[in-house]
């Protein structure tokens, strides 16, 4: 009975704190400007199904894709065992599905065990790629400090989790065989594929009368350890880059379905340009909606970005495929699309905390430009390689362009050559200093 109460309390706190954190993340994301990403839901579901559920874009790099697939499938399938643990925990049963499902249960747990083993191998491979092989994209300067610790911590948590699963299943198997299991049964075996083999190896020890109390303690450590890790993991997610396991789904659903070359139209500018070009416009006419606060051109801070940009930032798992495909980054420029996403998230978390502590008009004197330098923004060629590369359809380019828009239209700050280029367009209708009357000269030249 005490176990049930303890379990129920842990579950309530575990899910409760997670719910609170989700609410915080959601309200942070909704600080962004609105953008229409509804409509065409069949295409959206399809994108989500292929890109998030089907991991489509991962497979352009097969080795990490296969390793990741092992972890991903193991994670999804293990949820079945988690449901059983929760039901057992709340009802005081043991392996409640064993009786309900019979042979299928043995198959299912065996399947989970195989996947868990593959996941364990993948986890070690991932640790090696980061820490021993030191893959360039996983060892760039924006990852120094917390991001690297975050990545390793996640992998270690996964190892602990898998270890708990095998400890639990193996000790339970041995207990079953020697008649000490919680499950009422005749002598026999659960017959789970891998724990059965480990039990075979360990059996001689217990045949000699090794105390079963140790087994029982180990089995409980495995069981409680598993559920404790699950709740720890769940509540760590909203603070971690690993949040992509949840947000990859909504993020791909709300993907940009337009051609990548199409940049957003700024409607506020359209209205002004129309007014300028309309000979009948009354320059003194009151604006149609005089109560609306004038919107800033471009983005200075996270509130000027769209909610999709902010969802992107929380979804980013810092894999660095964007940065490794970025032509500017490859040629030694300061720009790293991954850093743009990490900076956006860090700033968003900071702004969100400020608002919750000091109210919504609080100004801490900082902005996105406290994180992202102008040099980074001006290094972008807008080639869309980062956007194409992202396995969860994050769009760093639209953030870069909105930052440029702010610098150019609000602060008139840009590289001097661009000032000249813009003047030329305005004066001669070409980015170079040629007379518009010479535009057709080519047709008469040899």
């Amino acid at each position, binding site marked *: 009975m005490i176990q049930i109460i303890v379990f129920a309390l842990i579950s309530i706190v575990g899910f409760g704190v997670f719910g609170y954190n989700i609410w915080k993340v959601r309200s942070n994301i909704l600080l962004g400007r609105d953008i229409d990403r509804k409509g065409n839901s069949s295409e959206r579901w399809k994108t989500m199904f292929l890109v998030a559920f089907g991991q489509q874009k991962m497979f352009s790099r097969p080795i990490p894709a296969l390793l990741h697939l092992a972890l991903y499938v193991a994670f999804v399938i293990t949820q079945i065992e988690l449901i059983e643990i929760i039901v057992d925990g709340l009802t005081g049963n043991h392996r409640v599905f064993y009786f309900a499902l019979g042979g299928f249960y043995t198959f299912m747990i065996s399947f989970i065990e195989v996947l868990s083993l593959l996941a364990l191998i993948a986890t070690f491979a991932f640790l090696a790629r980061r820490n021993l092989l030191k893959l360039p994209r996983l060892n760039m300067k924006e990852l120094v400090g917390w991001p690297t610790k975050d990545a390793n911590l996640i992998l270690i948590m996964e190892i602990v989790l898998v270890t708990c699963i095998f400890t639990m299943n193996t000790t339970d198997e041995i207990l079953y065989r020697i008649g000490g299991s919680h499950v009422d049964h005749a002598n026999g075996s659960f017959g789970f594929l891998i724990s059965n083999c480990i039990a075979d190896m360990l059996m001689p020890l217990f045949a000699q009368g090794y105390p079963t109390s140790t087994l029982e303690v180990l089995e409980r450590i495995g069981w409680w350890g598993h559920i404790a890790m699950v709740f720890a993991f769940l509540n760590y997610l909203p603070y971690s880059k690993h949040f992509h396991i949840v947000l990859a789904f909504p993020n791909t659903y709300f993907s940009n379905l337009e051609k990548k070359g199409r*940049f957003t139209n700024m409607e506020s500018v359209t209205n002004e340009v129309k007014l300028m*070009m309309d000979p009948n416009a009354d320059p003194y006419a009151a604006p149609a909606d005089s109560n609306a606060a004038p919107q800033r051109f471009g983005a200075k801070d996270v509130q000027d970005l769209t909610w999709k940009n902010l969802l992107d930032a929380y979804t980013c798992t810092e894999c660095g495929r964007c940065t490794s495909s970025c032509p500017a980054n490859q040629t030694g420029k300061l720009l790293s699309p991954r850093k743009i996403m990490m900076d956006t998230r860090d700033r968003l978390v900071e702004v969100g905390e400020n608002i919750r502590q000091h109210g919504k008009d609080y100004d801490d004197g900082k902005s996105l430009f406290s994180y992202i330098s102008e040099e980074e923004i001006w290094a972008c060629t807008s*080639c869309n*390689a980062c956007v*194409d590369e992202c396995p969860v359809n994050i769009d760093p380019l639209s953030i870069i362009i909105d930052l440029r828009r702010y610098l150019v239209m609000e602060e008139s700050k840009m590289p001097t050559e*661009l000032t000249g*280029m813009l003047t030329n367009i305005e004066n001669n209708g070409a980015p170079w200093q040629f007379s*518009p009357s010479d535009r057709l000269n080519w047709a008469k030249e040899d």
Partner: protein
Amino acid sequence: MSLNVPTMAEMMAKGETADVLFWVGCAGSFDDRAKKITKALVKILNHCNVKFAVLGTEESCTGDPAKRAGNEFTFQMQAMMNIQVLNGYEVKKIVTACPHCFNTLKNEYPELGGSYEVVHHTQLIQDLINTGKLALEGSQTYKGKKITFHDPCYLGRANDVYEAPRALIEKLDAELVEMKRCKTKGLCCGAGGAQMFKEAEKGNKEINVERTEDALETHAGIIATGCPFCNTMMTDGVKNFNKEDEIKVLDVAELIANAAEL
């Protein structure tokens, strides 16, 4: 052969209408290298008796570099002026040899009131070949030659056009060799996003040099592109390796015009 380049105004004065407007673009109008691409395309259009016209002095920058540089005002001023002209001539279809103009006209003008069918010149030429208006059969000019194609970002990733230029190269009976990074994974030449008009930010290498290395690895004698800016960048890249005598950088339209001996 002298070029026949009617303007929309001339056409209108004669009471004729053009089937397609050739949007020349700033590079195609003013840049000495790009003007050759413009002329190659006109030769093809003339040869196939395509009823086309240009805007001539009524054409102005689409505003693309302004928009990529973050100046939406300048972009929209340009766009709206151009749309007034285009709509005035009741333009339905536009062809352009510049992927930046192509992208802007196709994707960014409709929201401002300018909706046209916009095609890249490689798509139009492919259509001319498919409908039998242009024949390349038996052309020896590039037979068996190794040609690699550099995907312009604003044609490829930005608009998913990968096949038309490649189909044309294959029509030349040439050997199309791909760079290690091609199509969706193609590396930028370094000119996009208004970089063409400014010095690159501080780094350890020029992007066009990095991209030219990809092209050199293929041992192709010709680097084909479909963008005047990529052309400039790749030409400079080849010069950087002192290979300009062995390796030519040519637009797909030039390849076709040469092969058809126009």
